[in-house]
């Protein structure tokens, strides 16, 4: 699981503002579905590959790693269209999704998480008038990117521990220990955020009675 994808290279794509890259990605997504022309979509796919591999000089494996998890879904989609519609529609649908996945991979591989988070904070800033704290929204996104691979790793450890004791295929059986671990992690994480200055104004009354035992 590689959600933190930034690949440090000195390239014009890396230097481009995160907001511009996200806007182009959104525009590409809309454009691909507005223009049902296979030649145009394949041209966009070639352009994305050219930008990613040629201009941004990303390693091929960085893009392949992002496409690998969606291959089965693309194959199912193509098979579905071959049965229900025709090869042209199927190829168009697969090419659209593949182009978008690769474009998103190029954006995340050339943009630091803090830059992406700053764009999100800027976008939600108007919501501050109804009490939304943009910095908190940004922190939640950054922490999601940080903790998804960590929790996946913990889930893998639980699976291994269960397998070591003879359990097989206990997908549901790992939920309770995983939930317990995640809750403990969350309790310590809350303390760590406080310790590193991310705390809201102090509320001693809550802490006095509500803190979990370490």
């Amino acid at each position, binding site marked *: 699981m590689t959600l*933190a994808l930034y690949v440090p290279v000195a390239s014009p794509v890396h230097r481009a503002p995160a907001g511009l890259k996200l806007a182009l990605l959104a525009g590409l997504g809309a454009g691909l579905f507005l223009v049902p022309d296979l030649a145009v979509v394949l041209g966009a796919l070639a352009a994305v590959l050219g930008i990613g591999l040629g201009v941004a000089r990303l390693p091929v494996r960085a893009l392949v790693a992002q496409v690998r998890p969606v291959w089965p879904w693309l194959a199912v989609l193509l098979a579905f269209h071959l049965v229900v519609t025709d090869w042209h529609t199927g190829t168009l649908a697969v090419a659209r999704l593949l182009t978008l996945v690769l474009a998103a991979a190029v954006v995340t591989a050339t943009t630091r998480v*803090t830059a992406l988070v700053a764009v999100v904070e800027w976008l939600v800033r108007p919501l501050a008038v109804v009490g939304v704290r943009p910095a908190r929204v940004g922190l939640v996104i950054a922490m999601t990117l*940080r903790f998804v691979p*960590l929790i996946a790793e913990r889930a893998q450890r639980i699976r291994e521990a269960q397998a070591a004791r003879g359990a097989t295929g206990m997908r549901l059986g790992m939920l309770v220990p995983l939930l317990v671990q995640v809750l403990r992690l969350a309790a310590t994480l809350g303390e760590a955020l406080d310790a590193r200055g991310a705390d809201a104004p102090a509320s*001693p009354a809550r*802490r006095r009675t509500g803190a979990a035992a370490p």
Partner: protein
Amino acid sequence: MRWGRRAAAVAEAGALPRTSIELRDVSHSYGDRAVLHDVTLRLGEARVGVVGANGSGKSTFARLLNGLVIPSAGSVLVDGLDTRTRLREVRRRVGFVFQDPDAQIVHPTVAEDVEFGLTNLGVDADERARRVDDVLTRYGLAGHRDHPAHLLSGGQKQLLAIAGVLVMRPQRVVFDEPTTLLDLANTRRIARVIDELEQDVVVVTHHLDLLTGFDRVLVFEDGRVAADGAPAETLRWYVDRLS
């Protein structure tokens, strides 16, 4: 020898102000479970170790020192500032390193995580970049600055957690069992890092070797300070009691 390296570091960096922490009649409970009973003491030494069995109250004691836990009764004063009322100032003075670095690293990549605390302190961008570079270089993480934190080794994660605290320049750092999850080589590495810190430290640990050269050791037992003194005598008393 160990003290000499640290003293040299202090002399080079310019001495940080010494932090004094005072506990007055402190008791603490989690619900109905009392974990600390009437602890009164003052910590003024540069190197203080805390040992004790699991459940003896030492981790709660550590969390009291920078206001992560507010006592049920009594008060904790850091340079005269009560953790109950002056929490933010207390936390600027006292940093905290947790046992599990995974629970302390909040950003996906190394440099971004180190920068996190500085952003919270309101430090400007140029100063943030300078301090992050400094601390990553000092702890051998400069080559990993853009790497995903979850791909670091256990020792590197603990170094990152320490860097994330030290970059905020606290005057005292509390370590809660910082080597429990580490192998021998990484334990020695973290011990060296702690040894060379210019900051005052409080180290809660089960690894008694970590306390070599310390000024004072506290032994916790059933939520009370059972022994308090110079490391040689106090640790001997503790080991004898265990056997």
